[in-house]
């Protein structure tokens, strides 16, 4: 039995995705820049993928740039803007993914100023906090749509309105949203909301690893971070990752086809898991009951080490995470869990369960039952 509940780390590629990647590797392997038919066939795959991704966001295809993944999309948004910027101030939160935090920390070590907004016990900021933090020289506000560890949604529309008002008053401020965990889980409408930049990743939505996208509102200019050809309007040069992009396109079509039903199904499974976890004694559920994406349940199992519990569940074929996957190699507790007020011991006793379109009610029940037994068993061992 294999119950994979680590979908916020990565997802199993959909068979249709695998097929489209394979086709791009075996049949349509031309270089999109080549003049001959092989090149044209590859170019068509990219055009199709760009179209499919754009549809999921309700934007124009030409405003979607392909990248090597969410990290590059975030980095390109932040550094690409810093390279051309007309100000020196950034606003972000304390719970961003490291691919947003680290580029900003590096800028802060230079002549830039970065304001990190603290979050409440659900991991959420209020638009009013952004309003207070904005300065005339604020270049960018970067806030994730859905937190990768907690599933908490941020008030993106409200923040966007605040940023737009600020810009109307003459500031150069743009708004970037890391939507890597949000894509396919909650509705995203950057153009309607007035978001200027939005990052996406393929492998969180059953697409391939190593491919992602950045939505760039028309009129927003970014300094390329690589030198090279004219691909992706020169902003992201380099021969296109055609198999990856084709797979990303396939994943985008799949998620658009049944977005609402899938989200509703995940939501029901999330509730089902949450209820069963809540029945375990001495548990704290860190994912907020309202205003969370439908695929994450984060919970603290007091007096059990998260890492041990994870491996115990692994023995039963249940795969989960102790934090975001990037943290798992790092023994220091997650900055997100500390930011919402957990102490170090509780942060180290915390697991994240994350669902996908493939998750079934039977899997949730089996995982919850394995969890109940594992927690009881390990707690019996730690009694002094």
């Amino acid at each position, binding site marked *: 039995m294999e119950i994979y509940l680590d979908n916020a780390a990565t997802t199993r590629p959909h068979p249709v995705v695998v097929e489209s990647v394979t086709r791009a590797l075996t049949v349509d392997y031309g270089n999109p820049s080549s003049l001959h038919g092989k090149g044209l066939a590859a170019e068509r795959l990219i055009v199709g993928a760009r179209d499919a991704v754009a549809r999921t966001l309700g934007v124009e295809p030409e405003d979607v740039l392909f990248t090597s993944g969410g990290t590059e999309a975030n980095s390109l948004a932040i550094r690409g803007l810093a390279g051309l910027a007309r100000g020196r101030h950034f606003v972000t939160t304390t719970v961003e993914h490291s691919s947003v935090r680290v580029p900003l920390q590096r800028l802060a070590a230079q002549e830039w100023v970065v304001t990190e907004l603290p979050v409440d016990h659900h991991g959420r900021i209020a638009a009013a906090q952004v309003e207070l933090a904005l300065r005339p020289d604020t270049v960018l506000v970067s806030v994730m749509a859905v937190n990768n560890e907690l599933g908490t949604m941020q008030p993106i529309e409200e923040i966007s309105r605040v940023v737009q008002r600020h810009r109307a008053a003459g500031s150069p401020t743009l708004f970037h949203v890391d939507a890597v965990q949000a894509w396919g889980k909650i509705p995203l409408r950057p153009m309607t909301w007035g978001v200027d930049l939005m990052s996406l990743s393929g492998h969180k939505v059953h697409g391939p690893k190593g491919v992602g996208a950045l939505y760039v509102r028309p009129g927003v200019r970014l300094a390329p971070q690589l030198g090279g050809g004219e691909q992706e309007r020169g902003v992201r040069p380099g021969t296109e990752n055609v198999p990856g992009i084709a797979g990303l396109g396939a994943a985008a079509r799949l998620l658009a086809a049944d977005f609402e039903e899938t989200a509703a199904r995940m939501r029901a499974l999330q509730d089902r898991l949450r209820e069963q976890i809540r029945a375990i004694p001495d548990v704290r559920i860190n994912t907020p009951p309202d205003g969370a994406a439908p695929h994450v349940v984060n919970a603290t199992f007091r007096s059990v080490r998260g*890492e041990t519990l994870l491996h115990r569940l692994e023995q039963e074929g249940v795969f989960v995470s102790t934090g975001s996957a990037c943290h798992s190699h790092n023994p220091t507790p997650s900055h997100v869990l500390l930011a919402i007020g957990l102490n170090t011991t509780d942060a180290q006793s915390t697991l994240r369960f994350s669902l996908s379109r493939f998750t079934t009610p039977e899997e949730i029940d089996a995982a919850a039952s394995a969890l109940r037994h594992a927690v009881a068993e390990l707690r019996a*061992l730690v009694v002094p």
Partner: protein
Amino acid sequence: MAYILLRYGEIHLKGQNQRFFVDRLVRNVRESIADLGDAQVRHAFGRILVDSPAELISRLRKVFGIVSLSPVRVVAPAFPDIASAAVDMVGAALAARPGVGTFKVDTRRADKRFPLTSMETSREVGQAIWERFPQVRARMDHPDLLVKIDIRDQAYLSSDTIPGPGGLPSGTGGRALALISGGIDSPVASWLAARRGMTIIPVHCYSFPFTSERSKEKVLDLCRVLAGYAGPLRVWIVFFTDIQRTIQLSVPEGLRVLVMRRMMMRLVERLAEQERAAAVVTGESLGQVASQTIESIAAINAVTRLPVLRPLIGADKTEIVARAEAIGTYEISIRPYEDCCSLFVPPHPRTQPGLQEADEAERGLPVGALIDAALQRSERLTITPRWARDPVGVGS
């Protein structure tokens, strides 16, 4: 002709069985470079000569028994050949090390038929070097560059001396099992015992799910580093989970680590029969942690008849870390996965347990059955150096 000259140290002091040690060393040298083509390995005049490019030095400097190595040039034992080789050598050294400003020539003349004395040879060769490279000066004390000339059947010239690991050739010192965790100390202890010529068979007590699969990978990576010195190693991964669990449930908190160590010793003693091993090597350093006080050590020793070798018993942590860095295990040891010991250490382990107390604490444990069950589920692997193949399972 370019060679690498390998010098060995205390093997010279061996009497009747010097031959045994030298033959083994030559064989180990050959094996350490066997995959890199057919370099000739010769033994002559109490040294070993490998006709090979300098790239082999990184391998050869890990062969136990070798005290130092030098790239050498071998020329006819005639003054003009020697002088021109010396000038070439200094030229190469100046190109590689821009800071060199002084040099010295040091000659040893084993073949007394050579017309110049050692002193005269050094002086004349020095003169030739200075004429070609006037920017360097001769200097007797602490020269930047020392050119050594050894006149025997041929003349051997060298300018760099690279330290080897020393010790005795692997395979000349008997067999021992070595308890190895993922920590810093135990790989160093294993290395030190192996350096004395012992064949080391690492034994790791594996406690999944209390430790992760990656912690096992870490141990195997440590063994791979050790194999880079000692050659292919046999490694035991002992299934320790049920023993851990039982101890946790039935032994008083303050004695758990002690009982765990005693169980490890019993496991090792059983494996020793199977592996024909004469001793066990551990990484204990006196007083470092509660289970390493002399009282704990006495209680641990009481369960085995095997000699327990503790090469680090008198070493401080800083020395152990420095050694681990030098041999290349440190970076692996500090990977964050929990090792066998750290998860279950209670907050206040007893530091001065009595032997009787330990026996008492184990009264409820089905010791024999636990050991049998653990060994039944253990695996034996063969680990080759990193430059060779991946581990191959050979069954349990």
